[in-house]
């Protein structure tokens, strides 16, 4: 069990506007628990609607696709919290949460959480700001994922346009290289996506632009990109 002096909410940023007396009163109404690395803290199917405050440690929010693939949604550090969506709308959890290292967690009932929000408007404001940021991050991620298909199609077009180098090397090339607008039209995407994709492929050493030709330096990697097994291959920093 956690020792008494550990059980403090002073480091939780949501509560930074509250007085020490108010914090002590809230701490007594929380349930305190410790978790080790990889322990399940919150399962997607849990019936509770509690809010979880990370007093110490880091947690990982995960989701599972229909096929069982694990999708990392976010890492949440100490001082922050999770589970607030279910406390607000009483709907089932949207994700599971696993401890990334040793964690000390305080949980609070939805009744207490919602009462605090009503009693302390500054908490409501802080919470609104947090939700607004989550929405913007989600929108960015949706934009990334939506254009992913287009990037794959551009890679596929490049593969289809490529023929063995008549110059005798065992490489492949596209000659003459169609305009970006033509490639965009074939791949049903925008000229900007074509430019960005070719730029990324060139930076990765997979293709090389020379005058009116595009040399395919690494055909197997281009094929991998066209198949895009892993979306993070394209954007490493968007996982929330």
């Amino acid at each position, binding site marked *: 069990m956690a020792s008494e002096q550990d059980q403090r909410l002073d480091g939780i940023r949501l509560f930074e506007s509250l007085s020490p007396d108010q914090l002590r009163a809230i701490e007594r109404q929380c349930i305190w628990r410790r978790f080790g690395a990889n322990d399940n803290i919150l399962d997607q199917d849990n019936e509770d609607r509690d809010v979880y405050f990370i007093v110490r440690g880091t947690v990982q929010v995960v*989701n599972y*696709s*229909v*096929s069982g*693939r694990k*999708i990392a*949604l976010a890492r949440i550090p100490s001082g922050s919290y999770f589970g607030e*969506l279910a406390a*607000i*709308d009483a*709907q089932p959890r*949207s*994700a599971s949460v696993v401890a990334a290292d040793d964690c000390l967690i305080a949980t609070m009932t939805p009744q207490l959480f*919602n009462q605090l*929000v*009503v*009693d302390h*408007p*500054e908490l*409501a*404001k802080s*919470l*609104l*700001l947090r*939700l*607004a*940021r*989550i*929405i*913007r991050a*989600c*929108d960015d*991620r*949706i934009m990334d*994922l*939506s254009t*992913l*298909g287009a990037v794959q199609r551009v890679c596929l077009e490049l593969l289809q346009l490529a023929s063995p180098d008549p110059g005798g090397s065992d490489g492949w090339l596209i000659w003459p290289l169609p305009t970006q607008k033509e490639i965009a039209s074939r791949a049903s995407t*925008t*000229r*900007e996506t074509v430019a960005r994709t070719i730029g990324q492929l060139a930076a990765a050493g997979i293709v090389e632009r020379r005058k009116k030709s595009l040399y395919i330096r690494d055909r197997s990697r281009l094929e991998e990109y066209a*198949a*895009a*097994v*892993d*979306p993070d291959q394209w954007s490493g920093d968007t996982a929330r």
Partner: protein
Amino acid sequence: MHDEPNFRLDGIGLFSALPSDALRELETACRWRECDIDDVVLERDSDENDVFFIVSGAVEAVSFTVDGDKISFARIEAGDFFGELSAIDGETRSASVVAIEASLVARMSANRFNQLILVHPELATHLLRRLTRIIRTANSRVVELSTEAGG
């Protein structure tokens, strides 16, 4: 049918818990605009942070591709509002909004909106539920797209 514009906020769902004298005061604090079809109500990337209430009519959040094609995101009906994210976080607009019917729109400054939330906790609760619903929809979309991408 062409009624005189009714500069009242009584039909706005967010304000359903407010007493009528509070509503009358808010109505005078708003700037009002009668929009025709295709009028731009809000420009993407504009740097004001106002909140817009649709008193009558309907508007649509849109984005434009490089070719000038219009992509519609969401239809916003009378009684609803938009622009609250920028009022809350001070960031720029993520989409433009155009009228798709003749509409009466009331516009409130971010300061006034935020002050209102502080004074009326039930508005904050209403907003929290709304943003939570938006997040849940977006999260399902992320999972859906990630699954498609993963094959």
